[in-house]
């Protein structure tokens, strides 16, 4: 029987001929990524020195640290954490990306998402690099130290669940709707400890941005990571951007999957994830008309150029509802610059949006903090109570199109009600 992409990637990374799901291997990550955060990276730096007596990294070019939280600093203590990180990277040779945007996006722009690469992080949203053919796996919080002090990390080779996509998304329906639909359709346990492999003819119809949005949220299916079976031209484009060139590692036609599921994108409509659970996925229609006061369009899940284009298309020449706060946060500086070149930033500002430079801080409520009793429509990653401020504020997760349409009305609104998407209703 053949092998899956995940099995092939981990076989190569562990120096074996083959690796089969269920086997435990020690695999050498091609890249080790982390964002700086108190209690995480600062602890790694300390543990390296105090527990392991190490002050150097094996092949430091494999390591990238992103300063994307607490940007800009708002207290001296926060700035001290940043400075310690700068110093540590300078000393060890790890590459530092500061104020370049959210690391999960910047790492793609910087070529760490090379097809076939095995990449580790302690954040589960690193799975989004699977949209470019790289296997991004999160290791539990402090266990990422293993990647800092020895060449390989212990990992059990995961099974794979294959999802074959067919059809074509309706106008006004986005990648975010696809992943949340999958969570509803398959259930929150469907991909436990497995890799979700996305394939099928509809992959070619989905943008890089849409695939990245889907791949970044697979943790809510219980998945360890995500890999996209890309068409040849997309795989070549991804490889051209990669920092390393690796052998073509597609799944074999007779690969062994835990499960295989088909999904017709044509049947999907807009979805919201209702508070307080990332599992409570509903048709938008159930909540249409509910008043909302806050909109967040950003995060590693949905602040890319496609999202900004859709929002600008809806908001062009219009004004957001009085009293509604719309925070638009491009995922990276590159995305923001592109949006500026296309005139999207001017459109959004003129409609009344607040534009922030790229940062993670809106996603977890450090800024743009919500008060008790408020309700948000958000493209952030999560809707648990307290995620964006008060534990008594409600967060509805949805697509950028739904955030923009709702911003115009001050109510949860189906983007397909707008003339731009009307043909799809």
């Amino acid at each position, binding site marked *: 029987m053949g092998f899956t992409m995940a099995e092939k990637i981990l076989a190569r990374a562990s120096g074996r001929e083959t690796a089969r799901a269920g086997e*435990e291997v020690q695999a050498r990550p091609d890249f080790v990524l982390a964002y700086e955060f108190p209690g995480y990276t600062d602890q790694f730096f300390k*543990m390296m020195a105090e*527990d*392991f*007596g190490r002050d150097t990294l094996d092949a430091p070019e494999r390591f990238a640290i992103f300063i994307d939280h607490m940007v800009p600093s708002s207290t001296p203590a926060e700035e001290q954490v940043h400075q310690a990180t700068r110093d540590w990277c300078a000393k060890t040779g790890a590459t530092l990306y500061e104020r370049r945007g959210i690391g999960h996006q910047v790492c793609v722009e910087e070529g760490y998402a090379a097809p076939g690469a095995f990449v580790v992080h302690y954040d*589960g949203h690193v799975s989004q690099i699977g949209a470019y053919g790289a296997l991004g796996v*999160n*290791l*539990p*919080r*402090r*266990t990422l*130290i*293993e990647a800092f*002090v*020895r060449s390989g990390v*212990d990992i*059990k080779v995961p099974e794979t669940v294959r999802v074959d996509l067919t059809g074509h998304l309706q106008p006004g329906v986005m990648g975010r709707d696809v992943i949340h639909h999958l969570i509803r359709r398959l259930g*929150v*346990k469907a991909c*436990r*400890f497995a890799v979700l492999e996305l394939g099928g003819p509809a992959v070619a119809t989905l943008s890089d941005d849409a695939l990245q949005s889907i791949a970044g949220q697979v*943790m809510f299916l*219980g*998945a*360890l990571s995500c890999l996209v079976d890309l068409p040849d031209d997309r795989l070549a484009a991804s490889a051209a951007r990669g920092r390393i060139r690796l052998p073509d590692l597609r799944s074999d036609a007779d690969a062994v999957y835990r499960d295989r599921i088909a999904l017709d994108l044509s049947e999907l409509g807009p979805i919201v994830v209702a508070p*307080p*659970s*990332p*599992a409570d996925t509903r048709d938008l229609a159930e909540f249409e008309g509910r008043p909302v006061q806050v909109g967040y369009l950003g995060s590693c899940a949905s602040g890319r150029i496609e999202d900004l284009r859709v929002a600008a298309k809806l908001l062009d020449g219009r004004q957001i509802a009085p009293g509604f706060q719309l925070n638009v946060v491009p995922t990276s500086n590159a995305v923001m610059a592109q949006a500026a070149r296309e005139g999207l930033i001017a459109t959004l500002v003129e409609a009344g949006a607040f534009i922030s430079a790229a940062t993670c801080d809106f996603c977890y409520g450090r800024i743009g903090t919500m008060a008790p009793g408020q309700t948000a429509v958000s493209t952030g990653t*999560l809707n*648990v*109570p*307290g995620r964006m401020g008060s*534990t008594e504020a409600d967060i509805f997760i949805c697509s950028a199109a739904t955030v923009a349409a709702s911003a115009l009305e001050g109510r949860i609104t189906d983007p397909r009600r707008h003339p731009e998407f009307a043909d799809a209703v």
Partner: protein
Amino acid sequence: MPSDAQDLKLPAIRGRVAWVFDQPDYDVDQIVGVKNIKIQDLDQLAAIAMADQDPDFAARTVPGDVLVAADNFGYGHPHAPPMRAMRHLGIAAVIAEGFAPTYYRGEMSLGFPQIACPGVLGLARRGDELEIDWDRHLVVNHSNGRSLPFEPPSPAECRLLALGGHLPALKAALGV
């Protein structure tokens, strides 16, 4: 690195069932309440654990007690403080029908036994005395004489449990 994980001594687990979480997909943040997950003080956290359900929970729990849970225990975006509170009270293991991966991997990396035992909800009630029989891979209920097989941890997971978590296991592997 120990070459044979079977030679490692796994922790003895025998204790009463302190609580049965019978709801699937249970979000462990609810143990202390989402609004309290930033509390760092362990005594304070332990005092409020499950207090909404049973004000005497902390007082009734004794070291060695275990928790029993439904399937996909730990779903959501689990934070560390709730189970830190449980360990502080002396909880020795969680025995569930199944676990959510992020939660499971995180707690096992701390050397906190998470034991997958399909059917355990039908095996045990609050107050029953359970034992983990590592040799026979059985959860034994000494209160009703019944037992059920659990899914044995992998060799790497046995190392984590035997050595007390990822950090000591890694130090042992590297000889530091």
